[in-house]
């Protein structure tokens, strides 16, 4: 039967610790707005990432609608050429860096520690720093719209268009360079954090080959991030120096070569697309087995093909440059490698089909998104294979055919999977279930709208419609499919509204979700919904892959599923007096992070007036001060340690700051609520009014 742990009464909490460096005391509360600002809890940070990224999704989607309205008819007048350049640049930059990457990291952040049986990530404050840096980077990038004009050189920023300040006047490109540098810091630092977490903090018995496949794919993706980000960092610095200090890197008149920019950018850019899709593939690999009631087909092969994709992904970048004039040897070599990478990718698709085959399929909303992924990603993959043949790519490149290809893999692929993850993990994260009926409407309207939008683009591309044009003449015969695509885009917009309504309805209602609504396989489902602040009451020992499934089921001699007589006990919720020592909240990551955009603004305006660099110096001091304050506070504040606790609950290192009454088991709703669509659910039995009066 369920064990109920009765934590003994605690002594009154000691006074808030004094900081070594700052006059402000270390925060101790996890309640309210301040609690969210100073959080270092991976679950809250995951939610922050997710909500912020979703907000940027809406913004990027709005930009897409602007594009589609402009292109719906020939000689469109909604956007001037310059405005169009800004909109399509920001659409791409936003979707890649401010939506898909952070959404993948949002789920990674929330789920990886849970899936490996850990209490948090390796470096909780660094985690917070990553989030705030991401947020500030996004704000910095978007502030360009009101500070003279947004970046307008495309998300790929080709030199010398972007490296010569005269070609794209204004500060847009400078905002782009510095914005991406800031975001790059967030990503790189986050990658180190998740890699160390995954390698070092797995529960006893959780060997690498017993990890859930989502954890594996995230690990590979984060390692790619770790190694790819520095390359674009260098590219961006070279461009910065060309623009600001007159260096010669991309200047042909002094022997420089703009193609170097392309190499450096795509050396980053190609691994980047695998960074964007691998976590999504991991998500699909989690959802399919649950709703097929069958293990993932060929788990080791799935892992190895993921690793293969990660490696080979470094050897294909020139396929973005087939029309540049690199010569037949280079082009042939990279055609071949691009074809090779289709193999591990195809293997995955077959394994997913194998998972579903003869499974007991249940087409819930997450399952629809996952199956949709397989179909749409396959289409996108096929158009990718046509790109790998350089002769055919010569016709396709720089046309809408390519736009179709990457939207099929990034939207029909990554975004579909991320929506699937949202429906799948929503109960675990927020303690509520999203409505299934609305979810299905969301899926199908998206599916129809998506295919209406991007399907015709294959045709448009082959009929010769170039990319990156702000309008086209009637005589080109492109009007019909463009109009269809625009109708499709607005259909997607309606689907998004359906989703928003679903979230709104779910937040309004207080029907709590069960612990294991999907009869799932992995250990995050052994926890209460929503997850208590300390994650596991007791760190589990893992005996196999799909540990939770094997606690519930076994197979008879004929291989049929048999429910075990003794089911695992329901999840234990220790309540507010759990006594588990956790890392303490901190404001230093936020302070340090704030220094970065200040430095960046100083530099952007420094191109006009040297005095502006003083602002950068101030920003650097803020950053350094933040880092010092951070370095000199302990990860976890020492506290009076009750000896009784040490026996009842395994003590983690050092002392904790979890003061009684301040850490609610359900991590209840922030009173102020930050950001959009605040979805932090309330634990069953909690009432919102309790927290109002808290500090």
């Amino acid at each position: 039967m369920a064990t109920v742990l009765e934590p003994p009464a605690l002594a009154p909490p000691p006074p808030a610790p004094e900081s070594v460096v700052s006059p402000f005391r270390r925060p101790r509360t996890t309640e309210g707005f301040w609690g969210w600002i100073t959080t270092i809890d991976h679950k809250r940070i995951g939610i922050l990432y997710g909500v912020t990224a979703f907000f940027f999704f809406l913004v990027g989607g709005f930009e897409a609608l602007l594009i589609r309205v402009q292109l719906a008819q020939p000689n469109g007048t909604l956007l001037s050429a310059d405005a169009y350049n800004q909109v399509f640049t920001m659409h791409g930059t936003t979707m890649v860096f401010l939506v898909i990457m952070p959404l993948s990291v949002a789920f990674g952040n929330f789920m990886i520690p849970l899936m490996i049986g850990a209490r948090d990530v390796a470096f909780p404050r660094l985690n917070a720093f990553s989030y705030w840096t991401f947020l500030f980077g996004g704000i910095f990038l978007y502030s360009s719209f009101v500070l003279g004009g947004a970046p307008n050189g495309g998300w790929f920023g080709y030199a010398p268009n972007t490296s010569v300040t005269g070609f794209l006047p204004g500060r847009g490109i400078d905002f782009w360079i510095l914005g991406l540098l800031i975001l790059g810091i967030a990503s790189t630092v986050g990658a180190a954090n998740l890699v160390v977490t995954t390698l070092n903090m797995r529960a006893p018995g959780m060997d690498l080959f017993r990890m859930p496949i989502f954890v594996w794919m995230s690990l590979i993706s984060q390692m790619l991030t770790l190694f790819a980000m520095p390359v674009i960092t260098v590219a961006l610095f070279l461009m910065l120096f060309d623009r600001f200090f007159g260096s010669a890197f991309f200047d042909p008149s002094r022997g420089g070569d703009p193609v170097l920019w392309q190499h450096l950018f795509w050396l980053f850019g190609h691994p980047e697309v695998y960074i964007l899709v691998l976590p999504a593939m991991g998500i699909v690999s989690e959802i399919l087995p649950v709703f097929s009631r069958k293990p993932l087909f060929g788990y080791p092969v799935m892992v190895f093909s993921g690793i293969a994709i990660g490696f080979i992904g470094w050897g294909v970048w020139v396929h973005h440059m087939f029309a540049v004039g690199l010569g037949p040897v280079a082009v042939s070599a990279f055609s071949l490698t691009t074809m090779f990478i289709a193999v591990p990718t195809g293997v995955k698709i077959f394994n997913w089909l194998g998972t579903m085959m003869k499974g007991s399929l249940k087409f819930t909303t997450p399952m629809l998104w996952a199956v949709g992924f397989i179909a749409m990603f396959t289409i996108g993959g096929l158009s990718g294979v046509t790109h790998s043949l350089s002769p055919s790519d010569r016709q396709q490149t720089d046309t809408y055919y390519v736009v179709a290809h990457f939207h099929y893999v990034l939207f029909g692929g990554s975004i579909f999977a991320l929506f699937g993850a949202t429906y799948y993990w929503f109960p675990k994260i927020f303690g509520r279930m999203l409505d299934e009926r609305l979810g299905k409407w969301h899926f199908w309207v998206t599916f129809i709208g998506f295919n209406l939008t991007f399907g015709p683009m294959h045709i448009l591309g082959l009929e010769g419609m170039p990319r990156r044009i702000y309008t086209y003449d009637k005589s080109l015969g492109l009007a019909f499919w463009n109009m269809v695509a625009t109708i499709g885009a607005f259909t997607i917009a309606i689907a998004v509204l359906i989703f928003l309504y679903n979230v709104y309805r779910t937040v309004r209602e207080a029907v709590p979700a069960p612990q294991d609504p999907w009869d799932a396989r992995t250990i995050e489902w052994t926890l209460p919904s929503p997850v208590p602040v300390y994650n596991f009451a007791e760190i589990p020992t893992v005996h196999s892959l799909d540990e939770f499934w094997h606690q519930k089921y076994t197979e008879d001699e004929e291989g049929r599923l048999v429910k075990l007589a003794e089911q695992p006990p329901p999840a234990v919720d220790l309540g507010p007096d759990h006594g588990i020592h956790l890392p303490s909240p901190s404001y230093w990551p936020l302070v340090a992070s704030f220094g970065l955009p200040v430095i960046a603004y100083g530099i952007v305006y420094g191109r006009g007036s040297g005095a502006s660099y003083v602002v950068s110096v101030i920003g650097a001091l803020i950053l350094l001060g933040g880092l010092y304050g951070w370095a000199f506070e302990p990860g976890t504040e020492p506290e009076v340690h009750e000896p009784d606790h040490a026996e009842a609950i395994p003590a983690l290192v050092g002392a904790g700051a979890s003061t009684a009454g301040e850490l609610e088991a359900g991590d209840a709703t922030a009173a102020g609520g930050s950001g959009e669509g605040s979805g932090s659910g309330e634990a069953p039995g909690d009432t919102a009014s309790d927290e109002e009066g808290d500090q």
Partner: protein
Amino acid sequence: MSTQAPSADPSIQDQQAEHGLHPTEATYIKVAAILAAITAVEVAVSYWHGLGDGIPPVLIILAAIKFSMVAAYFMHLKMDHLWLRRLFVTGITLAIAVYIAVFLMFGVFQNRIHA
């Protein structure tokens, strides 16, 4: 004494026992002396025009030796856990492979007419 964190995994504990202590100070000084000597050789080779096109490969090999010695002894990689070596070597191998590909495309290894 070893500064490695004790591992929960018994097979790793065995590994740690084998690796034992750090090198002695004498070893470090010896390594430093060798590094200094190699540097001197490198500088000498760079002036040895008789070697012609042989200079770059010789220098690169000497640099690689120095690089490996610092990594192995000063950074303790030789005695440390496999995962560290993997992370580091992956980064380096990737960097080398990828950048050599770029060099090839820029015709870096082709002979040019020079002033």
